Structures are given as structure tokens and as C-alpha cells.
């Protein structure tokens, strides 16, 4: 019985985290956006810099009417948000928040994450297809093509880390990097791991459809992409899933390249509790980076997007993986 309870608690914790994080980051995003564009953004709701605005938004979404477009595929239309959210949430099971807390300590952790996040792709396609809307379908197709294309550089850069770490278990990946800043993967085999990280980071931006790779929901062409027809809570679920994904890829960046829950100062400020702090803050840092990038870089065209993936990132990844491989043996 306690075992079950433990498991249950362990699997609810990430959900709570996501909810809190989403609300916060919603606010942060708007604020960052505003400040980048030299304006203030939310200022009224709740007082200090409109801190209650996201909560108000949430309440608003809760009370919104659901509109199911005519002639849509109703079952798929309803199912899509489930799939999308489940896909991104289930990936959290393998994230080690700290050295003692990981919901499911899989020996194939990173592999599992790659696998389970493909659910999102299916969800997006379902949403786009069932909406009976051209823009949705375009958005979904583009989104899928993009995710699928960038899956390759992502997987290859993860592979590089796996070579270095010698394990697929994310907890062990962190263990390997334990012991301060310079044990982190990012500093190994200079400059190859740095390149690996850059590739991963760029590709992960595309994976979560963030600018400069937000073709699928390019407002000026496609209205809102695959979730054009979604309203109310269903829409909110897509939104939530997107934010969850943002943190997911950032967290993986942190784990793979920046030691995960490891303190940058070696033994100093380390321990399970500090581990959560380090992991979350590293993750949030990359989320912040993503937000910053969104408001600084223009959007790529579809052909440029494909070009970057297939003709830049993939070949570099290949070379990179061989270089790291060779170095790893020669050492």
C-alpha cells in the first residue's frame, strides 16, 4: 500500500510543478517580451506588474465555450489534447529532479523520452487533421515535418552524450558529471561537446516549435496552426503541453550537458534539496533563453528550416559524433 502511495505521489509531483511553472512562465514570457520591445506588459491585475494576470487568463479559459467546428472528426478532435499532453507529461517520469528523486528510474531513460515525446507528434497531427481546417492541417503537417526533421540532430547529439556517459539512464548521466562545473559534459572534449550542445539546443527549439522555428503556428500565414479551431480548456491543454515541453527540453539540456542536479561548485551547496534547486534553475535558465530568443530572432522560412536541419545540423552531428568517438577511444 505505501508503495502505491509513494508511486502516486511521485507521479503527481511533476504535474504540480508544471502547473506552477506554467503560470509563472506565462507571466515571465509576457514580461520579457514587453521589456525586449521596450514596453511594460501586464501592469494592473493583482498589483505588482500584473502578477495575477496568468491566473485570470486561466480562469477565463475555464469559462470559455467549446466550439467544435462543423464536419470535424469529433473523436479525434477531442482526443488530440489528451495525446499531446500525455506525451509531454509522461516524459517527465524519467527526469531526475534530484539525486534521490526520479519518478521512474529507467535504464533506458533518454531513449524512453525520445520515444514518448513522439506522442506529441501524433497528437498534433490528430488535431490538425480533425479540425477540418486548411490552416490547421497545414500547420500540423509542417509541425510534424519540422519535429521529425529535427529529431535527427537531436538524437545524434544525445547519442554523443551517451557515448561520453556510457549509459542511457538519466540519473547515471548526472552521476557521471558529478563534482563541479568542469566535470560537466559541456566542457569535455572541447569544443565538440559545446558544438553538440548547440546543435541540441537549436534542434530542441524546433522540436517544441519555438521561434525561430515556429512555422507551424506562424500567425501571419496560418492563423494559429494546428490549434486554430481549439477553444477553451482544450486550447489550454495545448498551451500547457507546449510549456511543459519547453521545460522538458531545457531540463534535458541541463541533464545532458550541465550536470543536471549537480552543483557547479562541487560539494558546495550540493545535496538532494539543493539538487532540485540546481536542476530547476538550470532548466528555467534555458526556458528563459528560449523566451529571449523568441523575441530577438525572426522566423525562418520552411525551406530554410529544412535546410538548417538536413544540410547543416545533421552533417555537423555526424562529424561531431565521429570526432567525439575517436577522441574517446584515443584517450
Amino acid at each position, binding site marked *: 500500500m505505501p508503495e502505491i502511495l509513494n508511486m502516486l505521489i511521485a507521479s503527481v509531483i511533476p504535474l504540480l510543478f508544471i502547473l506552477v511553472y506554467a503560470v509563472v512562465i506565462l507571466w515571465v514570457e509576457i514580461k520579457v517580451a514587453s521589456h525586449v520591445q521596450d514596453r511594460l506588459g501586464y501592469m494592473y491585475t493583482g498589483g505588482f506588474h500584473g502578477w495575477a494576470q496568468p491566473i485570470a487568463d486561466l480562469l477565463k479559459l475555464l469559462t470559455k465555450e467549446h466550439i467544435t467546428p462543423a464536419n470535424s472528426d469529433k473523436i479525434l478532435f477531442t482526443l488530440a489534447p489528451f495525446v499531446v499532453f*500525455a506525451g509531454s507529461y509522461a516524459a517527465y517520469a524519467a527526469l531526475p529532479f534530484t539525486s534521490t528523486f526520479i519518478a521512474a528510474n529507467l535504464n533506458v531513460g533518454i531513449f524512453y523520452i525520445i520515444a514518448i515525446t513522439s506522442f506529441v507528434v501524433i497528437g498534433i497531427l490528430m488535431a490538425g487533421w480533425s479540425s477540418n481546417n486548411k490552416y490547421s492541417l497545414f500547420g500540423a503537417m509542417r509541425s510534424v515535418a519540422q519535429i521529425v*526533421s529535427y529529431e535527427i540532430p537531436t538524437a545524434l547529439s544525445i547519442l554523443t552524450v551517451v557515448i561520453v556517459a556510457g549509459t542511457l539512464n538519466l540519473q547515471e548521466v548526472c552521476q557521471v558529471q558529478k563534482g563541479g562545473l568542469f566535470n560537466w559534459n559541456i566542457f569535455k572534449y572541447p569544443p565538440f561537446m559545446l558544438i553538440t550542445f548547440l546543435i541540441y539546443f537549436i534542434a530542441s527549439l524546433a522540436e517544441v516549435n519555438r521561434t525561430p522555428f515556429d512555422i507551424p503556428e506562424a500567425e501571419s500565414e496560418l492563423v494559429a496552426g494546428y490549434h486554430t479551431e481549439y477553444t477553451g480548456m482544450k486550447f489550454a491543454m495545448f498551451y500547457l503541453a507546449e510549456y511543459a515541453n519547453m521545460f522538458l527540453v531545457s531540463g534535458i539540456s541541463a541533464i545532458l550537458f550541465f550536470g543536471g542536479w549537480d552543483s557547479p561548485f562541487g560539494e558546495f551547496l550540493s545535496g538532494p534539496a539543493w539538487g532540485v534547486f540546481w536542476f530547476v534553475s538550470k532548466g528555467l535558465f534555458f526556458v528563459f533563453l528560449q523566451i529571449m530568443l523568441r523575441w530577438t530572432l525572426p522566423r525562418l522560412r520552411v525551406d530554410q528550416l529544412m535546410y538548417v536541419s538536413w544540410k547543416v545540423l545533421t552533417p555537423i552531428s555526424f562529424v561531431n559524433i565521429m570526432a567525439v568517438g575517436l577522441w574517446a577511444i584515443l584517450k
Partner: protein
Amino acid sequence: MLNEFVKILLFLIISVFFVAGALIVNRFIRPHRPNTEKSTIYECGEEPVGNPWIRFNIRFYTVALIFLIFEVEVVFLFPWAVIYKELGLFAFIEMVVFLLILILGYVYAWAKADLEWDKPRPRYLEVSKLKESFMESKSEKVEI
């Protein structure tokens, strides 16, 4: 190990419950007054034109195909990468051979312009013309 996967199942169940819960809560407090105008699909305010379920560009398929090749490759590479350091140089050579063969395919796809999103001209004419062209394929005139 089974237990670990049960946890994942739990994650999935929780996420489904969460979404379902949110939707149910939503159901009780939201209005529900559909009408034709509302349920028309959104095309920037214009009347919708044509069937949205169209055939999409062949490019998507090509991308999927190339993805498939690499993804499959990655599946093989992961187990290899895990024990890479134990195997040493030998593993490296094996991987190079393996990768070279794949890269050959990659180079081929590149050279045949299958990695371009916009190809300069369509590879095929319309179907009707295509059939004609096969009929007179000996005449060499029609580019297929």
C-alpha cells in the same frame, strides 16, 4: 523493472485524468450555445472554400522517408553507444563502416535534391499527360 514502467503508466493515467478533469470542470462552468456561424471553420473571416482534407505536398513524404532512415539508424546506434567505451577502437571502426553506408544514402539523397524543400520543377506532369507521355515514350520529347 516492470515497476518502473508501471510508474510510467501511472503518469499517463494521471495526465489523462488531469486533462479529463479540466475538461469536466470546464463543462460545468462554460456556456454552450452553438450556432452555424460559430461552428463554421475559421478562415480569417471569409467563407470557407473547398475541402480542407486535401492531398499534401510530396515533400512531406520525402522528409518522412529520410527521417525513417536516420531514425532507424539511431535505434542501432544507441545500444552501441552505451558500451562504446568498453569496445574501444574496434567499435569505432564498425560504427564508421555502418555510418559510411548510411552517409552514402544521405549523400545520394542530397545529390538527388531530395533534401531541398522546393525543387526547381515538378518531377511529374499531371497524370493525364503522364499517361500520354508513356504512350509516346519513344519520341523522347516529353519530359517525365
